[in-house]
């Protein structure tokens, strides 16, 4: 096995251009487990941990967006100003694994693995994130919805590196909630991100771990927009909340597995969505 340890993005891009079959590793919190279990035997590895450019984050000059490096560890998303600007992302980051895992894991890894249970992914989906990809020959910016193709499948080309994601900084309540069978360090069996965009009178809801990939509840969003004035805090009636929950449940496509059942997942994700909507409308 060869391991390339580039210290700059250009070196990393050159390495992947030379050997597109190489396995990219960032924090290693997914890949090393796979290797331990003998599920994957990469022959060539490109380790990105020393590429400091990937660990930066910045706010656009006009203050409208935030761009987060693919290698920025979750631990830094909890405490920083990021938590003020994109609270749902900070909340999702806090639910990842243990402190050790959060010190290593990153959004780039979440996108690279593209598991439907990836904790940051519902936030990226709800906020319509843009994923920035680079190769030695060029750059590509694609919507996270196009990036996530299926269960553990994404649109990254073999010679590309996930460089960063850009998220809009929106005015309005946003939050993330996740159900696991343990009170910490647990893989999601249902998660939900809900974000209100007051400026555009829009609401966005994305579900995790209840389908082959992250589910964006566009039908429910459209219906809710017709029911509520999203430019301000609403009084949400019991009936409306119930119908909202039912609609979210309908959009989920959960399965039975050893972690949970489809019936419970549907119930849980619907309950989380209702609670987030209530929190969003709590003055």
């Amino acid at each position, binding site marked *: 096995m060869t391991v390339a340890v580039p210290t700059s993005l250009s070196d990393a891009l050159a390495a992947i251009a030379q050997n597109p079959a190489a396995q990219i590793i960032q924090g290693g919190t997914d890949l090393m487990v796979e290797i331990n*279990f003998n599920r994957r035997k990469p022959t060539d590895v490109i380790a990105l941990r020393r590429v400091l450019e990937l660990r930066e984050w910045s706010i656009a000059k006009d203050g409208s967006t935030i761009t987060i490096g693919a290698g920025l560890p979750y631990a830094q998303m909890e405490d920083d100003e990021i938590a003020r600007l994109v609270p749902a992302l900070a909340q999702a980051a806090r639910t990842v694994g243990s402190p050790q895992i959060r010190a290593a894991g990153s959004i780039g890894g979440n996108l690279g693995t593209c598991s439907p249970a990836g904790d940051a992914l519902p936030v990226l989906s709800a906020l319509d994130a843009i994923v920035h990809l680079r190769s030695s020959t060029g750059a590509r910016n694609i919507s996270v919805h196009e990036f996530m193709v299926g269960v553990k499948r994404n649109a990254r080309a073999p010679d590309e590196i996930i460089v960063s994601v850009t998220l809009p900084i929106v005015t309005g309540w946003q939050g993330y909630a*996740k*159900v696991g*069978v*343990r009170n*910490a360090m647990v*893989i999601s069996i249902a998660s939900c991100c809900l974000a209100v965009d007051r400026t555009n009178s829009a609401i966005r809801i994305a579900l995790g771990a209840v389908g082959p990939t992250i589910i964006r509840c566009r039908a429910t969003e459209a219906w809710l927009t017709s029911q509520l004035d999203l430019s301000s805090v609403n009084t949400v009636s019991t009936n409306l909340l119930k119908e909202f929950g039912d609609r979210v449940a309908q959009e989920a496509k959960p399965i039975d*597995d050893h*972690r949970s059942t489809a019936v*419970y997942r549907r119930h849980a994700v619907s309950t989380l969505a209702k609670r987030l909507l209530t929190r969003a409308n709590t003055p």
Partner: protein
Amino acid sequence: MKNTVSTNTVSINTVSTSTVSTDTITGTRREVRRDILGAPALRPDGADKVQGKFAFSSDIWAEHMLWGATLRSPHPYARIVSIDLSAAFDIDGVEAIITAVDVPGKKTYGLISSDQPVFASDFVRYVGEPVACVAADHPETCRRALAAINVIYEVLTPLTDPERALLPETPKIHPDGNMLRYQKIICGDQTIQGEIIVENTYELGMQDQAFLGLEAAMAFPDSGGAGVDLVIATQWIHEDQKQIAACLDLPVDKVRVTLGGVGGAFGAREDISLQVHCCLLALKTSRPIKMQYSREESFYGHVHRHPAKIWIRHHATNEGIIQRIESKMVFDGGAYASTSAAVLINGITHIQGPYKCESATVHGFAVRTNNPPCGAMRGFGVVQACFAHESQMDKLAVACGLSPVEIRLRNAMRTGDKLITGQVIESVAPVERCIRETDAIPMPVPLARDANPLELVGGSGLTSLPQNIVRGVGWGVSIKNLMYSEKFDDYATARCQLHDGIVNLKFATAEVGQGFVVLAPQIARSVLGVDEVILDPVDTRIGSAGSTSASRQTWMSGGAVDGACRLVREQLFEHVGKIHNIDPLRLVIEDTDIVDMIGDFRISVIDASTGAHFDQTFEHHHRPTEELDENGQGNCHVAFAFVAHRAVVDVDVELGLVKVIQIATAQDVGRVLNPIAAIGQVEGGIAQGLGLAVMEEIVLDNGKIRNPSFTDYLLPTTLDMPDVIAVLIEEPEPQAPLGAKGIGEPPCISVTPAIAAAIRNATGRDLPRVPIRPQDICL
């Protein structure tokens, strides 16, 4: 934010610590506590373990060693048509491949009945059953060799439903049949019908011991293959020795077993796992062999706690006094016998709980299936019984209009009461006191409306706000037998040598984390007045100590060390008496001196033993027990310990999520020999019982383990652990050599039903099965 285990109150009635003055290196005089019995002595290996310096079995290395690895069955039930090793032998670096034909001695092993093959040869009966082993120069070579072994199986329909195993028409999956043991208990009036009758069927899932230090061993062959040394993490080196020697066809003394560093056991190291394989490969290759399991392999490589289904009916008076119990208990033993027969007996003989009961009709079945084999785990059959009887006590309380505390107090057994086996409880039995002292522990503060969401149910998942949460309280009380039962003489041996003020202790007691390495020196210091105690290697060069299980080592090996030290003390007094012309009967130990009780003679133990050498070996045997007769009658147990638990839980009823807030407990310990170690056992046991209540389960699908990893087999984390408030009740046990009862198992037994009861209290649900899953609560 409080997210660590905190033990707020430890009430200890009589901790005997003595203090002496000494000069330190700095020349200042200060009080230091000697680590005698009763002192909060620290483990000698504690700091090393915390710092990662402790050598576990998996850390052993040798020049020229080879690695061993195991090929396992992918099927729960199949006939082996053929095994082709040729491709595997062709791989560079492969030094040996062995199968059933290479086992020179007995082809099977087992703790009670020898029904488990060293390697499967005709049939495989569970997923993970060993079929072959390889020795090679590198673990990766081993992996490739295993992949290159071509086994052709004729896949058969597995028997995975224990109820079906009971049916006479079900085909036998083993020559010994599908019934591992049946035993009934018939006692008292079989016709009584209570004014109050409550019944239900309870179920428990399969729990794993989940020790952190994985199975690991190193075998060193004698030149010429005359014998073998095995260094291994195990629970009972002499039982290993006996079983290995039989399979290798070697005299017992040619198999020398030494205890390696053990990272937890909880029953899972009692059975043979890699012992025979590792020794066979070493003898075959004439090279040292290192074997260690991965976490996934560990789930296949050791026995688990028996899943059980228990139907039970209580008859009681209107006042809640239990008159009769009827029960049918079915334990799923999995593919091989292991200790199922003994687990079953523990289950049925403890089904009355710590309550008086005159009449009983109990039928117990341990059956064979194609599920993973089950055997010993902390609590050993009593965990299953306790979940059923404690759930019933709450039903009875409701039916009689009594509180959970009152129903238990009204029925609490005491010393002199007769069990449903006819055995009279001779042990100290402070059941009522356990309940009252637990009840007196303050309840936690109510949930604050503005509580930090991270501290609520769901933790960082931010699922729940205070308005989503309902708090519940539940009770569990248990009785647990100590030591082995049914005529088994599980004695313990210890040797004590004293010279120049230094004591050497030798015993074969496996230290698996329980703390005998700290207790044994405490005993020697108390009995002999020494400070320096050296523990010799734990190996088979001395008689057996029995297993580190059944809450027995403090009593048994503690008794052996105490006995050996007392014999040496007698010799020492005779020696001093002769030299100083004093009747040795007048001499006693006071701190580190020998003093004349009547005169003013005084000499330090160091001075008295300088130039002398005393050497004594002692075997401690507990009183004999009996087998049960056909009707389940007989004095089958040695002694009993009792404990009460009160659980306070927060439940998000709509999402089915649970957080345990507080466990209050009062445990009957006889005497506290080391308060730190005692509290460690209490907290650890509670964590394990909590796991069974709400998250720990091996999920099976047609005999296959679906979650063989710590990603999906969930253990409680620090954030899942509640505050533990423990009272240790000290009423010294007259039968016990040190007055102390075993304390390892009781903490994990009744905490599970206490948590289940608290969740029922919060939700109003029946919840007859543990672990309780979110969907059980909210759907």
